[in-house]
């Protein structure tokens, strides 16, 4: 299956039970610089994240899953683990 960064983030947010605000705050904590509207546009599928934006979201989500004792379900940019 083709790697779709927007879908990976949407799936991660859904599985985490997060809101867009949760993702936005977690990305700010990691040095992300998007505003909430940009985050909403990405999770709504209106536009894809850049690689840098994706990396920040993936770390935020994976750290959250790790806190819950899960693995790191959000893959690296190229679709690897």
């Amino acid at each position, binding site marked *: 299956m083709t790697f779709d960064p927007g879908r990976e983030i949407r799936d991660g947010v859904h599985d985490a039970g997060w809101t867009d*605000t949760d993702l936005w*705050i*977690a990305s*700010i*904590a*990691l*040095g992300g610089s998007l505003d909430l509207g940009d985050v909403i546009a990405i999770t709504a599928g209106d536009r894809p994240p850049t690689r*840098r934006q994706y*990396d*920040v979201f993936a*770390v935020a989500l994976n*750290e959250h899953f*790790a806190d819950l004792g899960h693995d*790191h379900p959000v893959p690296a940019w190229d679709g690897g683990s």
Partner: protein
Amino acid sequence: MSDSTLSESLATLSRFFVGDGTLEETLLRVAELTTEAIPAASLVGITLMVEGKPRTAVFTDETAPQIDQSQYDTGDGPCLDAFREQQVFSIACTEEEGPWPAFRAAAAGHGIYSTLSLPLVVDKATVGAMNLYADRADAFGPADHETGATFAAHAAIVLANAQAYWDACSLSERLGEAMRSRAVIEQAKGMLMGAQGCDEDRAFELLVQASQRENVKLRDIARRIVTSATQRPRAPQR
């Protein structure tokens, strides 16, 4: 009830400054004012949706949530219908047959014989519902319905304002915490950029790699880098 009692209760409600108490304290005060505005009510409970599930967030007597639980267990009751349909529902006598049989039985079992359920609606959105319980049948007359609707309309605005205020406080706190975490990550990235001669994106990548390799949170890796750099002995100055 007299118009002056309702006016006093509404005036008290309108003077609420939601930041003076927690959301729960504000809700409790609203519930207490309701019993003053509608004296036939022996107890009052306010239902809110918490994480998608109905919960009696505040009550003037612990019997209220015990009765409400039968609604939540079956998904069927006047307060839930008031919430869903944005309409007032009442039971004149819980010992008589009618809609919501499980709720009627639970209420009668707790000595509650009539109920009045009011939706709390702001700008067409339901923010909660209020259940008024009386220890006698036919306790709520047409005037109580009218007073209840008026009071609920004002109470809903107080609740919505309180919710918005505390949501904003919570967001502010979370952002403050995020900014503290962000600061140490930015410092670590700057140090890596200086040491490795790389750009910001590469510095972040290095932090991510170290975090994954050591199975340690990224901010803890960053803190370690910053701490080790600041604790390194300084070269003697000439």
